[in-house]
């Protein structure tokens, strides 16, 4: 039956040639761009299924969710399914694993691909056995006729090449009610290795003859290497311009040698970074590129009140617990790289640019790293490893960043300034909303610029200029402008993003991108407007919301939190905030309870979210809770600090994050929507949690703190 379909490599028919009626409907998720069925799964004769997505595990549990989906659609036991790590030489190109889109892109593709594989097999088996298609059923991979006899199995067909075809679109995955595994709390496939200390991370990979390198970064941002010390005994130096590395036989030697070389290398240094307090002014002074996101005039009614407020978020670090790592091997054939990048195909492209090597001669394999929470140094360290490997052909090289590299040199979440001007009628009804965002863009991932966006590329003897961070298009959720459009009904609406075209510190995507500052701004202003009009903040929000799913999460979280038992204590406050992530993702409402003494402590969070169909409810709740706890850390503590020359918050002492003793109790409720399309959960709670904490601080102390983080200093400044 596969012969009826277009040849595997033929281009899909163009609607312009054949007219819209016969144009194939789009295939779901990433299948549209990667139609070959055998790219998505393999059936093995020994009775196993290997799912081969292009998305990668970044600690979000995607492997498990995809295995669940495959188990359902194929009618195969969950235990028979494994998920293979992606590689550029054979996996479907699913772009970046980010933006909470793994289940949307990959999940829907795997679901459709598995449903197609099942249908194809059923068709073949029916024809061959003479059993009518309708009376065949699949039980754990075996096809059973009406008399209960097995008439075939996936495993018996494993070698017959049935998946070597374009994925048909005319198959229907099972209805939600027929799913047995998706929608249940299947245990994470990767967790046992991590609990028993098995070698699972890229960091644990060893190859025969492997050597270990460390990078000696410039002591400040634009420093140039002037004089090299001798290589310490047992170490070799690799130098290209101001890129300097030591390579040794062991990790311990490499770490020691790096310290010695760093102490003796001579660099020409100068001040290049602006004073931190001037950042906001620099953002406005430009140069900027202004992009209007929305521009709708109001009805012209004269406002009774106008509220103007300015919010600021500093640069933030991804701050993975495991520092970035890569392995590279250079040979005649080309370059092979093992990486925990979120975008292995784009990494391959930028490695090719930086090394002046055709991308076809590079293979990037994905291996798991520590949680990354956005674009951290994972791609950068791959170039570091490749540069060292080029100097040691034939020998695999492993590079792991130092903690100082990780906190000081990885891309940062962009600092942003947000200004809001809201006009309201006497009763508080919104008449117009003006929202401006300033600062660097949130996208420096590989694959988007003419020059490679990899750290060491700008340190080479023939350097590439570092591309200035962009903002993803509004259709993709935007960057600095992510969540800048209020969900609330308003007459006039003007939203503009002013992307700064200087970039003293490299910025890129960090969990939720611009949503963190924009949701803080919107929800703080809504709270303030409600109180100014003498209205309850919850009722005020509901009065401005038409979307029933938005209202539902707010009502759910209010019910979860209930009234504070025993009323409000001294210095204790509660605040609520809501957002629909990216305006098109999951709906999320948060209530925070804080206690404000010398410093603010978050005691509790209640979270209600609607993420459509939830493939693994346990995993999704965990993702939401994790995002919220990280948001507490961001709200209370996190700020990248720097002087004229470099980043000074490059240790855990100077970039502290939330500790066990400071983590609030968290309750999460997911609204059941099994028939609605799945939406990611990893980032939906970030903005609402930060904003709910800010509103709770106002409730506790009567002050609006509009500068992150909410440290005693910033609170004192807000008190004036």
């Amino acid at each position, binding site marked *: 039956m596969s012969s009826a379909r277009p040849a595997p490599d033929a281009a899909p028919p163009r609607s312009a040639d054949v007219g819209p009626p016969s144009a194939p409907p789009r295939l779901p998720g990433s299948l549209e761009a990667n139609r070959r069925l055998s790219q998505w799964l393999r059936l093995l004769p020994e009775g196993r299924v290997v799912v081969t997505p292009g998305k990668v595990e970044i600690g979000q549990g995607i492997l498990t969710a995809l295995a669940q989906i495959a188990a359902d659609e194929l009618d195969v036991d969950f235990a028979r399914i494994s998920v293979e790590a992606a590689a550029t030489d054979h996996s479907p190109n699913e772009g970046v694993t980010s933006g909470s889109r793994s289940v949307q892109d990959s999940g829907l593709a795997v679901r459709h691909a598995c449903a197609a594989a099942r249908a194809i097999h059923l068709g073949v088996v029916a024809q061959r056995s003479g059993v009518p298609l309708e009376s065949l059923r699949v039980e754990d991979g075996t096809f059973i006729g009406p008399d209960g006899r097995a008439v075939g199995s996936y495993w018996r067909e494993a070698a017959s090449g049935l998946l070597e075809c374009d994925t048909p679109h005319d198959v229907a995955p099972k209805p939600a009610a027929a799913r047995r595994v998706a929608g249940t709390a299947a245990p994470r496939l990767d967790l046992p290795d991590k609990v028993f200390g*098995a070698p699972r991370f890229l960091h644990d990979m060893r190859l025969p003859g492997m050597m270990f390198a460390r990078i000696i970064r410039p002591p400040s941002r634009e420093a140039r290497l002037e004089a090299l010390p001798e290589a310490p005994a047992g170490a070799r130096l690799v130098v290209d311009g101001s890129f300097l590395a030591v390579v040794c036989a062991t990790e311990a030697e490499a770490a020691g040698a790096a310290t010695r070389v760093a102490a003796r290398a001579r660099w020409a240094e100068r001040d290049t970074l602006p004073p931190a307090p001037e950042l906001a002014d620099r953002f406005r002074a430009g140069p900027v590129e202004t992009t209007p996101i929305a521009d709708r005039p109001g009805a012209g009614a004269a406002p009774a009140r106008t509220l103007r407020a300015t919010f600021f978020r500093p640069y933030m670090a991804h701050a993975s617990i495991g520092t970035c790592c890569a392995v590279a091997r250079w040979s005649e054939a080309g370059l092979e790289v093992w990486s925990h990048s979120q975008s292995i195909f784009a990494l391959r492209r930028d490695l090719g640019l930086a090394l002046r090597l055709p991308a076809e001669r590079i293979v990037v394999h994905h291996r798991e790293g520590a949680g990354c929470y956005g674009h951290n140094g994972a791609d950068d360290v791959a170039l570091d490893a490749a540069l060292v490997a080029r100097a040691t052909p034939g020998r695999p090289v492993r590079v792991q960043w130092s903690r100082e590299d990780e906190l000081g040199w990885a891309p940062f979440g962009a600092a942003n300034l947000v200004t809001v001007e809201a006009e309201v009628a006497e009763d508080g009804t919104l008449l117009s909303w003006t929202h401006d965002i300033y600062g660097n863009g949130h996208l420096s991932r590989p694959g988007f610029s003419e020059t490679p966006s990899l750290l060491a590329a700008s340190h080479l003897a023939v350097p590439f200029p570092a591309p200035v961070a962009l903002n993803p298009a509004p259709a993709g959720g935007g960057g600095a402008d992510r969540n800048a459009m209020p969900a609330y009904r308003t007459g006039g609406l003007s939203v503009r993003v002013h992307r700064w075209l200087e970039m003293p510190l490299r910025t890129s995507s960090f969990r939720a991108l611009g949503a963190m500052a924009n949701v803080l701004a919107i929800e703080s202003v809504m709270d303030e407007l409600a109180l100014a009009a003498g209205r309850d903040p919850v009722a005020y929000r509901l009065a401005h919301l038409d979307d029933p799913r938005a209202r539902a999460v707010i009502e759910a979280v209010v019910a979860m939190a209930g009234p504070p038992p025993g009323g409000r204590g001294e210095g204790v406050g509660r605040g609520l905030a809501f957002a629909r992530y990216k305006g098109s993702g999951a709906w999320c409402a948060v209530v925070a309870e804080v206690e404000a003494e010398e410093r603010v402590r978050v005691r509790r969070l209640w979270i209600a979210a609607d993420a459509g169909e939830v493939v693994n409810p346990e995993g999704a709740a965990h993702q939401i809770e994790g995002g919220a706890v990280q948001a507490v850390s961001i709200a209370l503590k996190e700020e990248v600090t720097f002087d004229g020359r470099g980043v000074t918050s490059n240790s855990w002492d100077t970039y502290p994050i939330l500790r066990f003793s400071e983590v609030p109790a968290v309750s999460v409720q997911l609204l059941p929507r099994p028939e609605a399309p799945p939406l990611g959960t990893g980032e939906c709670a970030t903005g609402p949690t930060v904003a709910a904490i800010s509103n709770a601080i106002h409730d506790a102390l009567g002050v609006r703190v509009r500068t992150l983080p909410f440290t005693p200093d910033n609170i004192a400044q807000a008190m004036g």
Partner: protein
Amino acid sequence: MTVAFELNGAPVMLDLPPETPLVHALRDGLGLFGTRWGCGAEACGACMVLLDGQPVPSCTLVLDAVAGRRVRSVEGLGTPTAPHPLQTAFLEEQAGQCGYCLSGILVSAAALLERIPDPDETAVRTALDGNLCRCGAHNRIIRAVLRAAASMRGVPA
């Protein structure tokens, strides 16, 4: 120079420079990769091991200082076929996201439960305060430790 010590109940001899940090000696000298490296500065807890029963970071502990002593790493807590109650509880609670922090946390928690078989939540938080987790898995981890404590005391969870 050869350094001899006891690792996970068995004697080991390692021929490595005496100033080698234990974390690297375990990973590259002995092929035990469970002990993770995260900072090299005693600041994150990813590299925790038990030294004569006490939880210590192994990133600054040099091999020389371990001679003749008892070391227990995450691999010595239990195995998939004979798991430590903590490992069972972490799997039951699905305590962990990326999991990079877990080895160090399991080691710190094991030391706690040996000292205090019946800890309350505050004691668990205090015992784990030197272990950083960036994924926000803290609350599940705390629940898992309390669950393990209960099961070790024979109380059904």
